[in-house]
């Protein structure tokens, strides 16, 4: 369904204006200027050329001085740029690839992990960005970057940040938050570093960050029992901060990456298994999608404004929820479903088809998210920047494509699995960690591209935010596996 600017219902203010409702009304007025006036307007276009120019300028010429504020996020600037290229179906030439690999390796810290720039302290966030950037441009061999990652030291660096409540500092003397945990888990998963020792208590920590609204907060506060041997109390363990899109994506993706530990006997007895409230999470995530007057963009918190980057942070939670068994039509996970007879089941059937409106989100991104001179943005009239360019494109990708764990793909990978002969390796667990990421496949029968196939972008892996090809390439390398070929459906005639 395409919005037009007539007949849109502004968010009700109940004749009781506050700072929140004033900011909301202002934003709605601005957005309204970006909605086509008539329903006969041509479909919106993804201005790929302009975005490419924006990205090439940043990569080749460099970033203007205002990006000094991101001098401690150099790996991010590069990752956002490279992954934006990948999403736009563009690869780098060998010369630029090699330059990028050398630059990324200059961020590796002598004691393990990657820092925000050469000589900067190691930090979990740039470690994710560096490893993912290497997944895009790197490869095996002496100059490829992958084998130059010091995995042993990285593991020690991770362990040095571990806290008693299962969380991790993002860096020495620094804060705890779930972004860091997500970044650690992606790096550890891709590089075959994930162990029960590393993630002991981490799933419980993630669960404790879920708020009463259903989304997740940045962190939680542990309480310990009094006495000589304080132990972590199950309650109280309050979340610090309200439910937030960025933290919710990071928490949920972490939760999904930790599933192999949940299934593999790490938690016995069963009542000690940590759990999250999935119906509340589904409700919250769906609530974050704005109304028609907001063009279907996502906001990051209750009563805040829509912002293009939440297209990924909030929109990107839905495929993860599906992986946890949430049914698309009721939002209720399979094992939580109340006992109802078939006739009641049918009653639900005509209520909803999907968890969120994929087409409306694309409208927001195409009409409001694109800066006229290239790059994507939070909302008009803001400037484009490297961060928003990637997360708007990732959100667009997630709205266009339906990427799900596939049982068929899983069976292929299992059939090709090469066992590890090292005596101290938990083979089942390692295999499950691998499958947990590698089984995701695009469901090509369920593509939804607003504006037609010229607007198509590449599919993105819901856990890593890399393309599926890049995710598979680096993982197969580090797990010593050969990649079984994909069974492609015959092209349409």
């Amino acid at each position, binding site marked *: 369904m395409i919005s037009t600017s007539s007949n849109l219902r502004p968010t*009700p203010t109940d004749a009781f204006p506050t700072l929140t409702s004033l900011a909301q009304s202002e934003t709605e007025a601005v957005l309204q200027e970006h909605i086509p006036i008539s329903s006969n307007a041509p479909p919106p276009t993804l201005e790929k050329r302009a975005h490419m120019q924006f990205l090439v300028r940043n990569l080749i010429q460099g970033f203007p001085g205002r990006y000094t504020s991101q001098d401690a996020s150099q790996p991010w600037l590069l990752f956002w740029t490279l992954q934006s290229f990948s999403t736009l179906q563009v690869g780098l030439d060998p010369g630029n690839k090699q330059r990028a690999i*050398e630059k990324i390796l200059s961020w590796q810290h002598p004691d393990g992990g990657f820092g925000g720039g050469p000589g900067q302290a190691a930090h979990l966030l740039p470690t994710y960005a560096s490893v993912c950037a290497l997944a895009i441009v790197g490869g095996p061999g002496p100059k490829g970057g992958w084998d130059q990652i010091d995995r042993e030291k990285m593991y020690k660096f991770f362990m040095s940040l571990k806290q008693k409540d299962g969380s991790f500092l993002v860096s020495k003397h620094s804060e705890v938050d779930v972004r860091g945990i997500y970044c650690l888990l992606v790096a550890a998963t891709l590089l075959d570093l994930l162990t029960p020792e590393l993630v002991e208590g981490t799933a419980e920590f993630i669960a404790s960050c879920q708020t009463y609204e259903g989304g997740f907060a940045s962190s939680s506060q542990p309480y310990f029992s009094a006495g000589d041997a304080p132990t972590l109390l199950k309650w109280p363990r309050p979340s610090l901060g309200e439910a937030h899109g960025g933290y919710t994506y990071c928490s949920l993706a972490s939760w999904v990456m930790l599933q192999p530990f949940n299934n593999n006997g790490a938690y016995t007895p069963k009542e000690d298994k940590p759990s999250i409230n999935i119906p509340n999470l589904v409700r919250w995530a769906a609530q974050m999608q704005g109304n028609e007057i907001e063009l279907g963009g996502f906001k990051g918190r209750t009563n805040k404004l829509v912002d293009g980057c939440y297209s990924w942070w909030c929109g990107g939670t839905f495929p993860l929820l599906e992986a946890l068994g949430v049914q698309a039509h009721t939002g209720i996970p399979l094992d939580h479903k109340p006992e109802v007879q078939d006739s009641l089941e049918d009653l639900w059937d005509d209520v909803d088809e999907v968890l969120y409106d994929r087409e409306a989100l694309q409208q927001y991104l195409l009409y409001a998210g694109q800066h006229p001179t290239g790059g994507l943005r939070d909302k008009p009239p803001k400037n484009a920047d490297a961060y928003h360019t990637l997360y708007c494109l990732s959100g667009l990708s997630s709205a266009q494509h339906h990427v799900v764990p596939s049982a068929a793909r899983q069976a292929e990978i299992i059939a090709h699995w090469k066992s590890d002969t090292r005596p101290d390796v938990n083979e089942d667990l390692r295999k499950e960690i691998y499958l947990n990421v590698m089984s995701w496949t695009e469901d090509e029968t369920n593509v939804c591209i607003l504006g037609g196939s010229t607007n198509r972008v590449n599919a993105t892996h819901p856990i890593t935010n890399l393309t599926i090809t890049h995710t598979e390439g680096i993982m197969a390398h580090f797990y010593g596996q050969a990649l079984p070929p994909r069974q492609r459906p015959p092209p349409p005639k």
Partner: protein
Amino acid sequence: MSQNTGEQILLFSDKREWADVVPLEQYEGDPVAPIFYSETYKDATDYFRGIVKAGEKSQRVLELTESIIRQNPAHYTAWQYRYETLLAINGPLDTELLLMDELAIKYLKTYQVWHHRKLLVTLSGKPKPELDFITVALSGDDQKNYHTWSYRQWLLSYFNNEEDLWSGELDFVEKMLTKDVRNNSAWHHRFFVVWASGVRSGEQDRERVLRRESIYVKQNISLAPNNPAAWNYLRGMLDHVKVPYSAVSDFVKLYTVPFDPSRPDLVDLENPPPSQEAQLPCVQAVEFLADVYEREGGKENIEKAVELLKKLATEYEKIRKK
């Protein structure tokens, strides 16, 4: 030490007292995606790399790291090194906190300014003045700053002092909600104080607390019914104490139908009615009622729930299905 005076800024390379330090340029290699740094930033970070390499921790490191932080408050390595230097030279915490008062307001959205405060207050062990500082920080344009709210919540639970810290929180959060009843950060803080952090002194009678909170949130819904933050608080509270949603059906129903001008104007604390200006029916109320029916179960109730949700989808909110 302050550099924002508009005077010609002296580079570290021009200063005689820094002549003994060997500045270290950032490795650029064959550059891809470089940042165009200003001369002053490049100069300060070159000297910083030199200092870190030499391992020097001295008074002048505070000057150098302050210069970097003022140009890029997200430079976490400069913050880390500054903290280690403060510890090494046993630097005065009160002076440092005064500087942080300025920097926190200036760079409200930076993780590091709040985390550095946290480290300092952990060392000083004096959390009480912090509450007033936060109140000021939250009184400006940014009343929803994530770092500021979570810092306040950390202070309360980490130091966990009933008299000095927790006792004023309900008043504080009420003031914030009076300023903006739609501020979800404040609603979350209320939940944090009342429900999520154990039982406060004087709040042992949970029935009474539930009654108080119930009246409070309903009153606030009646002021501005189309406010998901307040409805989420109501849901969260009922979930927390495991009271079924149907317990508030009478209240909710007032908001699922158009305004009734013939309704007698009675004061009913349990079920405060919407104001005349309220835009009804209110989406959150309709959704709430559908949930009441769904949870009660049975064919008839499910039908009612489905009917409400269909109405919701077609009339009020085309995008957001349940």
